[in-house]
């Protein structure tokens, strides 16, 4: 960390708000996410000047304009590439990437994958609303089969991508899920920030104009306990007020739901959440909602060395003991001197 970040300075939510008029549709889930982020920032001990929000194109990508930090609203799908160059230029910066299901998984899927596999230290917030908003409602790579939209009047036929499974498959060392209006979202963001490396957060976001309430089946407050599994490190995977849990079917090697009687989750074989268990993480991201509750919170968190740290280390090692004398570099290789008497080696 550089000097600026080590200066203890308290900020409040107000310090992270810009004077710019927010231009999302009234009622858009993005408002709630913006507030959650602005509320989280003072608690994670960083400063506005050392923070950069980098985004691509789409509704979500307007985000940087509303954060009183440095911000770069780039081009469609490429935010991870800009973030990579920026972080390598200044590894001390705290970088947040804001993207959407179209920006991050369709046009920019390639960059998302490579940023994750390289493990650049940053937070990736992927706002998943399962629709293209800014271009007026076409189906997206996360839209469910049968989604009718201006470009799919008879319903979409292609199978949707699963953002969290995609991230884990790309080699992510941190995968989390939340949703726009959840009061748990700041905790998820804090955990993502605390993770050193690429932290991928899928945030379900309600597009009230083109895909209204598409997540109501699990996000609606009423009955939420039955449909949401909030994962907590070291705690059993129980939900529905402790009456149900997630267990491993050891024969078939997949997860199953079990009834928990009288709170005795051990007897029901409920698994204790270990955020470093990659095998279980693979099963959690694949857990189909309906048959299972929606797995939310930190699904996986197991850091390993980051890309920019390795680059810096290699640059230093390669430069060690060498002097950066460009004049002598120009003279390197096959040279000869021309004198009055002719050329010589």
């Amino acid at each position, binding site marked *: 960390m*550089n000097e*600026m970040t080590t200066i203890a300075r308290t900020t409040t939510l107000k310090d992270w708000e*810009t004077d710019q008029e927010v231009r999302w549709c009234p009622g858009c889930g993005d408002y709630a996410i913006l507030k959650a982020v602005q509320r989280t920032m003072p608690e994670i001990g960083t*400063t*506005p*000047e*050392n923070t*950069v929000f980098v985004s691509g*194109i789409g509704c979500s990508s307007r985000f*940087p*304009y509303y*954060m*009183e*930090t*440095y*911000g*770069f*609203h*780039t*081009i469609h799908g*490429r935010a991870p*590439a*800009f*973030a*990579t*160059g*920026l972080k*390598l*230029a*200044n590894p001390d*910066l705290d970088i947040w990437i804001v993207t959407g299901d179209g920006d991050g998984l369709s046009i920019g899927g*390639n*960059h998302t994958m*490579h940023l994750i596999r390289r493990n650049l230290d940053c937070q990736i917030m992927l706002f998943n609303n399962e629709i293209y908003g800014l271009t007026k409602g076409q189906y997206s790579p996360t839209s469910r089969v049968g989604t009718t939209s201006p470009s799919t009047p008879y319903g979409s036929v292609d199978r949707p991508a699963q953002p969290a499974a995609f991230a884990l498959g790309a080699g992510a060392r941190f995968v989390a899920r939340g949703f726009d209006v959840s009061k748990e979202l700041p905790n998820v963001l804090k955990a993502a920030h605390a993770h050193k490396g690429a932290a991928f957060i899928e945030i379900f976001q309600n597009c009230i104009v083109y895909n209204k309430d598409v997540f109501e089946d699990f996000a609606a407050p009423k009955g939420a306990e039955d449909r949401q599994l909030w994962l907590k490190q070291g705690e059993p995977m129980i939900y529905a007020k402790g009456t149900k849990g997630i267990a491993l079917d050891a024969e078939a090697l997949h997860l199953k739901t079990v009834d928990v009687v009288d709170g005795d989750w051990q007897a029901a074989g409920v698994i204790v959440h270990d955020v470093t268990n990659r095998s279980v993480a693979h099963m959690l991201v694949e857990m189909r909602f309906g048959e299972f509750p929606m797995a939310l919170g930190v699904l996986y968190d197991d850091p390993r060395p980051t890309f920019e740290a390795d*680059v810096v280390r*290699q*640059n230093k090692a*390669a*430069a060690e003991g*060498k*002097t*950066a004398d*460009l*004049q002598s*570099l*120009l*003279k*390197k*290789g*096959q*040279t*000869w*001197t*021309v*004198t*009055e008497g*002719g*050329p*010589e*080696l």
Partner: protein
Amino acid sequence: MATAVVDQADKRQSPLSDAVVVRFAGDSGDGMQLTGGQFTLSSALAGNDFATFPDFPAEIRAPQGTLFGVSAFQINFGSSAIDTAGDAPDVLVAMNPAALKTNVPQLKQGGLIIADEGEFNDRNLAKAKYDANPLDDGSLAKWQLLKLNISQLTMDAVKPFGLGNKEALRCKNMWTLGLALWMFDRDRQPLIDWLNAKFAKAPDLAAANVAALNAGHAYGETAELAGPLKQHHVDPAPVAPGLYRTLTGAEGIALGLVAGAQLAKLPMFFGGYPITPASAILHHLSRLKEYDVTTFQAEDEIAAICSAIGASYGGSLGVTSSSGPGIALKGEAMGLAIMTELPLVIVNSQRGGPSTGLPTKTEQSDLYQAVYGRNGDAPMPVVAARSPGDAFECAIETVRIAVQYMTPVMLLTDGYIANAAEPWAVPDLTTYEAFPVEFLTEAPEGGFKPYGRDENLKRPWVKPGTPGLLHRIGGIEKELDTGHINYAPENHQAMTDIRKDKIDGIKVPDQVVELGAEGGKLAVVGWGSTFGPIHQAVRRKRAEGLDVSHVHIRHIWPLPANLGELLKSYDKVIVPEMNTGQLKTVLRDQYLVDAKPVNKVSGQPFTIAEIEAAIEEALK
């Protein structure tokens, strides 16, 4: 005429009596590029001026003996200034039938063919689509032919070292080089030293290669009496005393970029993606970490430029590099760099197009793409290098413009410059004026304006991490001064005008006349790697008394302020280009001059004779 090697050659075709063109041609696996490279060094040590032209296939390991698997290396060396790799070779070394077939048509009439007859067997003849052996059927009568069983002679020479057949035959190129060294009265010792160093870990291989080299040399000495083979000495060219080295365009660009970054006092970030013929720049820079260079091999061309822009945003000198197809992919990101007014260097090593085109062949057909190839009104400076040495200077110039005007700049070179080598007088870096960047670190009087401007219309460069100067940038139209989002009609008009005025106002040096006079009957206007043939052709025609001048444009955009008046001072203007007339169109558009195109798009550089013919035609 070119040389004493070929006594009866046509004098009119090549008036220079002190230059020789040799072409080494063989199978991709025969080591012709290496042979050519080492012969180049020996030419340098002999004090000759020279220019080279490596001409190799796009396939990495093309099937042996095939026509498309032929790899050639041409060198023109002499005792006066050499500007091109030469038109027609005086000597062709053909290591197999395919090499003979693809290269002999260019050989000067009366020129010398040295052929390895050991490779002219039925199988190889069939692969080269010869019905009869050309070494025996008289079809090569207009040239002098020297048939040697180089394969066998090499095997005999390296026999004592106990190599396998395959390894022994690999020494063929050294045998050939030995013969070439004898032909041009060259010192073998530097090559022997080089071989010993190269094979330090395998002394047997070193000894075998040296033996092959010596055997080839000895063959020349003994065979001289009998055949067409004669020894020829090319005097050293008069060059200024000083330290010289061979330099390829890719090296020139890499070193120039490092020098530019140092002069700007910036760390450099290079984002690249492998593509022929641009990859060599990435390779060179990735070994220069002690010069504060970070290189990043991105996942694609788009990520390469975007990471470079991200690094520029962070306060580094962002650089990216590619060739035509990759440059096309980077177009949208260039627009963002223009909109956000961040410095960026984009190197385009042009190759034959469109689409994948001719990856290993040269062309100048990306000028439209460089000047005009983006969505919206997106003006961007363009600088074009004429030679490997000039690429060093141009790279520094692009960095200067990028940081002094906060703009992306494109540097155009081509496959010919990237791969060709020339002798280069190592410059004294203390003679270059530094242009250190000053970042804005605190709000100036009157408040901080992210899109406020100085007298050059440049906006301030602020590194994220700087307290008190927080702001947001992006690709949406900016409000004047504040940089906030603004879609208002009058604001877009004003911002578009400012972006154009900023680029139009870049100070570039006045155009000079390379050879000839300001005003007259004919100007030959070129850019980029056509410098060599144009310069030689104009020199020759002026020696014949014709009124013709050579103008060579480095600053393609913005064009030098005096260029319009200069062009109008000639009765006629012709523009030779390796495309269908791109600079010609720009000149016509900018100055309403009747510039006439002279075009060649064969993947091969212009010959001097072709430009001479165009001059004669224009002055008819």
